[in-house]
């Protein structure tokens, strides 16, 4: 590996080859999903042409603040992390688990309905790649697998895009999840806008990815081009926002009585926005309903949040009545207990929980207050 971070072979395509890549994926049966602008935010949705991408736009993010801003170039991927993560496709927010008739004949949903899905994610940021690999562990590495997740995940094609800029809430560098994708992708792109040309460097992570590169007008990237791209990525990694991950898991679990938990609890609305935008949060609940005459019942699974009042409620009482305990549960799970559960942290440093917190609670400064004082 050269010190620009790239692993050979690295190819180069002109920016207008992006459409050919999309076409090739679609011809191979993939539903192409990528960033688009909707409701004044960048979100992931179905895309069919490069015209759907938020070309020439970026975002400015800060605690409780998100604004789209025009760039002075035509970058396809010139923004930071979109409002929501890819979680919504791999682990849909609502799913029917079964229907049952009163005579108890189960009408399970059509079998393995997810295993036939073929999604291609276009523009997966390195932090989000890590988030997907974390959810892989949550849903597929234990005794009971989530069949729905496994089915969708199995057919997934990932086009990663390395970060060449960082948002103000990004802290992937300290979490060691970005700004460059090293594995878990089929293809990885780095967008470069040079004075004379707009191009992508392309790496492939496996033979499937390589087969798509062969279908493109690709040339071998030069050392100089890799250096240019490497510099952009390196610059994106120079983030001032950091969490010291080596000490944090142990310190957080040891400081469950820290007074800051009370202070932050006074601000926290327990709305659960942070858990919805978090790319790794996986909690769910179920909802049981019947038709009006009670002849059949339906069970649906829905995203849940550890911030809801009922989350830890049992018939005899509630194990987490206070917002202090619910905020503490979320933070200690992400940055401490997750390690024992799944061998990895549950936070990737995408910063969404900071941006989308309506009162601007900043997980970084909270963790600093609790672990450093």
């Amino acid at each position, binding site marked *: 590996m050269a010190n620009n971070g790239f692993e050979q072979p690295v190819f180069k395509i002109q920016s207008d080859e992006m459409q050919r890549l999309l076409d090739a994926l679609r011809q191979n049966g993939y539903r192409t999903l990528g960033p688009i602008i909707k409701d004044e935010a960048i979100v992931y949705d179905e895309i069919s042409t490069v015209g759907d991408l938020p070309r020439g736009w970026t975002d400015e993010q800060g605690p409780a603040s998100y604004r789209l801003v025009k760039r002075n170039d035509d970058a396809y991927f010139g923004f930071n992390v979109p409002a929501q993560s890819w979680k919504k496709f791999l682990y849909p927010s609502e799913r029917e688990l079964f229907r049952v008739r009163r005579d108890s004949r*189960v009408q*399970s949903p059509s079998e393995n309905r997810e295993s036939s899905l073929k999604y291609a994610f276009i523009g997966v940021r390195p932090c989000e790649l890590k988030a997907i690999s974390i959810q892989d562990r949550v849903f597929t590495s234990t005794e009971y697998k989530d069949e729905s997740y496994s089915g969708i995940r199995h057919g997934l094609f990932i086009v990663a895009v390395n970060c060449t800029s960082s948002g103000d809430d990004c802290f992937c560098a300290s979490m060691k999840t970005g700004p460059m994708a090293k594995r878990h992708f089929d293809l990885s792109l780095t967008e470069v806008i040079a004075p004379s040309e707009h191009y992508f460097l392309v790496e492939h992570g496996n033979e499937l990815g390589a087969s798509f590169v062969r279908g493109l007008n690709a040339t071998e990237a030069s050392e100089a081009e890799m250096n240019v791209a490497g510099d952009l990525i390196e610059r994106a990694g120079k983030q001032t926002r950091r969490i010291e991950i080596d000490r944090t898991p142990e310190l957080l679990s040891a400081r*469950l009585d820290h007074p800051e938990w009370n202070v932050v609890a006074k601000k926290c609305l327990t709305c659960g926005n942070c858990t919805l935008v978090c790319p790794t949060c996986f*909690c769910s609940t179920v909802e049981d309903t019947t038709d009006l005459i009670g002849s059949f019942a339906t069970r649906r699974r829905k995203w849940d949040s550890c911030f809801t009042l009922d989350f830890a409620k049992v018939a005899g009482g509630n*194990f987490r009545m206070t917002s202090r305990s619910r905020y503490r549960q979320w933070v200690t799970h992400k940055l401490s207990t997750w390690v024992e559960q799944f061998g990895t942290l549950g936070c990737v440093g995408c910063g969404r929980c900071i941006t989308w917190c309506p009162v601007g609670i900043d997980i970084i400064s909270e963790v600093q207050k609790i672990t450093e004082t």
Partner: protein
Amino acid sequence: MTETLIEAEEKVADPLLPTFAFIKRVIWETDDTFTLFVDSPAINGRLFSFRPGQFNMVYAFGSGESAISISSDPSRPSVIAHTIHKVGTVTTSLSSLRRGDMIGIRGPFGAGWPIDRAVGKDVCIVTGGIGIAPLRPAIYSLIKRRAEFGRIIILYGARSPLDLLYRVELEAWSKVPNVEVIVTVDRGDSSWKGHIGVVTNLFSYVKVESQDTIAMVCGPEIMMKFTVEELQRRGFENDQIFLSLERNMKCGIGLCGHCQLGPKFICKDGPVFQLSDVSHLLEKKEV
């Protein structure tokens, strides 16, 4: 059971789908607690079998699921029992069911009581209220293999004489050689001649030595806290004490996140824990 249903069972391996079972018998143990006996369902073509202390997710048509420990004898798995305290929406729905109705079952899930670890040792069982239900399969197993264990001490507390569960079994167990059963109630009534007070008071009436003894404890968390303190005063180490914990559960298989206690998932790492694995988590409020 209809053919359609059997076919459906064979095809489906999804742990989130319940298997339906006929209720054979309903016994009202007390005013608010009942036991449902069901014909053991074949789950994915395999006969149902379970270990003492494991639980099922029990589904009432249209109203939802509750995590209910299995309270029957594991050596007779053709009929399984769930003793249920009618206290919430789902358990109220379950309480209206009769013989011939069906319930959905997913399970068995979780880690059970350390029966094999207790071989050659004394066993001290301390339980309160509905907490005796997950311990009944353990008691059945201990008594079935009576010769392999030393003394078996069962200390049980209920709110009142009318709230005592399994009176017939308690009576029968007390007649088994080297099994001591002592019962107490919080409030007596005119007919009650036994002990009154919290279950930890019973330690005054029985000799419990920590050496070569395994303690199995299940009841309200406050009762378990005081029981643990009592056991520790008697020299029990935290690796000799086992507790069954309760938390909210939606999936029973470690995917929904609801039952977390620090790093532990009660559903799959428990519900039975060695105290040394959870004592630091139980010391803090609202973990």
